[in-house]
């Protein structure tokens, strides 16, 4: 990220812009990363072609790798805007998929 040079030399003092960008990434990584992981878990639990309990176990195991990947993405993207976009697109797709899955997959009857 471009702020890297400034962060390397905190002795010179960080401008408020850099501080705000870093804070923005921390917030985006924490809540955005968790949101992506939560959406993917909820979606895959319904969508994976397995017995229901197996789908939930698989989706839950994957969720933490998804979250770590999302966090690393947020901190490695060139700008905060790109980082946000990179989370928003899969987030919208997963959200739409979840909405469809909740409409079509029966969740109350026992498997």
């Amino acid at each position, binding site marked *: 990220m471009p702020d890297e040079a400034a962060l390397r030399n905190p002795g010179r003092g960080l401008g408020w812009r850099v501080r705000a960008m870093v804070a923005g990434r921390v917030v985006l990584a924490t809540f955005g990363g968790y949101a992506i992981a939560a959406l993917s878990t909820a979606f895959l*639990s319904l969508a994976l072609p397995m017995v229901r309990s197996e789908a939930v176990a698989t989706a839950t195991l994957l969720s*933490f790798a998804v979250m770590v990947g999302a966090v690393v993405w947020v901190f490695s993207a060139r700008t905060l805007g790109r980082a946000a976009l990179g989370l928003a697109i899969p987030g919208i797709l997963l959200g739409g998929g979840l909405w469809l899955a909740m409409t079509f*997959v029966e969740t109350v009857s026992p498997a």
Partner: protein
Amino acid sequence: MAWLHTWAGLVTGWVMFCVFVTGTATYYRTDISQWMRPELRAAAVEPGLAAERGAAYLKVHAPKAVSWFVSVPQEDRPLIGVYWLDSFEAPIQQAMLDAETGAPTTVRATHGGDFLYRFHYELQIMPVLGRWIVGASALILLVALVSGIVTHRRIFSDFFTFRRDRSAQRGWLDAHNVTGVLALPFHLMITYTGIVTLAFTLMPWGVASAYRGDELRFFVEAGQSPAWQAATGRPAEALPLAPLMGRAQAEVSEPLEMVIVNNPGDAASTVVAVFEEPKGLAHRHPQIVFDAVSGAVINRLGTLKPAAHVFTSFLGLHEAHFAGPALRVLFFLCGVMGSATIATGHVLWSVARAPKPGTAAGFGLRLVRGLNLGTILGLPIGIAAFFLANRLLPVALDQRATWEGGVFFAAWGGAAILGLLRPHDRTWREMGTAAALLFLAIPLVSAVTTDRGFDFVGFDAAMIAIGFALAWGARKVSRYRGSARARPAAASKSLARA
């Protein structure tokens, strides 16, 4: 990405250091529990009989409970543990019974190794809050690990480099790298599997979407838990437990661990025989469910589907119940290295930011130094005080187990306050010596206050080794700090952000 590694490591490191240290100790939970109940000798009581003794106590003291749990005497705890739930919302209640008589035990009340085990994932605060703090810290640690690997481009050549005497900072960096990289597969494995153990607290959304939040139904369908049979409201006489347990044991090669009675006294009552884990990675207990009145087998749990098997294998990998003595030592040493990686990372952070001679340290640096002292030496001091309290508090003291925990937190808190007030190099040496003396005192105090003398050779040896290691490590910190400050500040400025 270097700064991500540095800062993610710094903010979670104090919590994760505590989690690593108490988790590493938990590999020897049974040995710690044995040491903390020196009055107990192994008692050979037939498990079915012990279950009946426990049920007899519960029949008198918890006749209205929805569930009884009786854990039969184990090698590390030759007592009958009885637990009961008055309702699904009520907190679980418990009592410890003598294995021979079934009457409440008179041995010293202590949480034993369970205290450190529970601290490991709940921090001994409100359980849900503690789990979230530990889980979130572990997730950030996983990020720190992944970004640390990405950061470390020369991981292979640095692996063989240890510049002990080049400069203070280089030495700490290499110590951080060696302990971090040598056991890296362990660090990644233990952090990820640790998160998996808290999975349904941290990530309940799969159960929420596919099961509408009905977690019990998930565990039933996954074959990990028997289905709940609702009470009928009609009383019925249940069969004695010992013959049922005998029938169950005939089917399973592992020893019986616990007996659960659901809806005791009801016509729809069920009895579940829970056995110890079979050899293998997966953390799953074979279970046989009986109708308590007719004695018919309702269900047998044991084999799992692939994903559930992977899930439970991760739990098993984390807890290492499968490990024999040699492998357990390896896990323990890896845990020690994990703790050392975190501790050296924190010392490195503060050494790299040491102010030039003659200038005062800023608030942030002083805070980090104080927290480093209070955590890296404060926690061991708390643990040593906890062990000493187990020997020195009167056996008949009211609320004795709670007092032991109180001593743990008081000693740790005292050390932490001292560290924050005097975050100096000299405090490292003084507190390190104090911690070492406390650990060295444990075998002596134990020999004087109990009739077991030096029976617990392994435990005593471990305490002595920990004592010397702490004294040595703390001396290193105080010495290296001193020389780092004497050096021209420009000596290794490029490493400051390592």
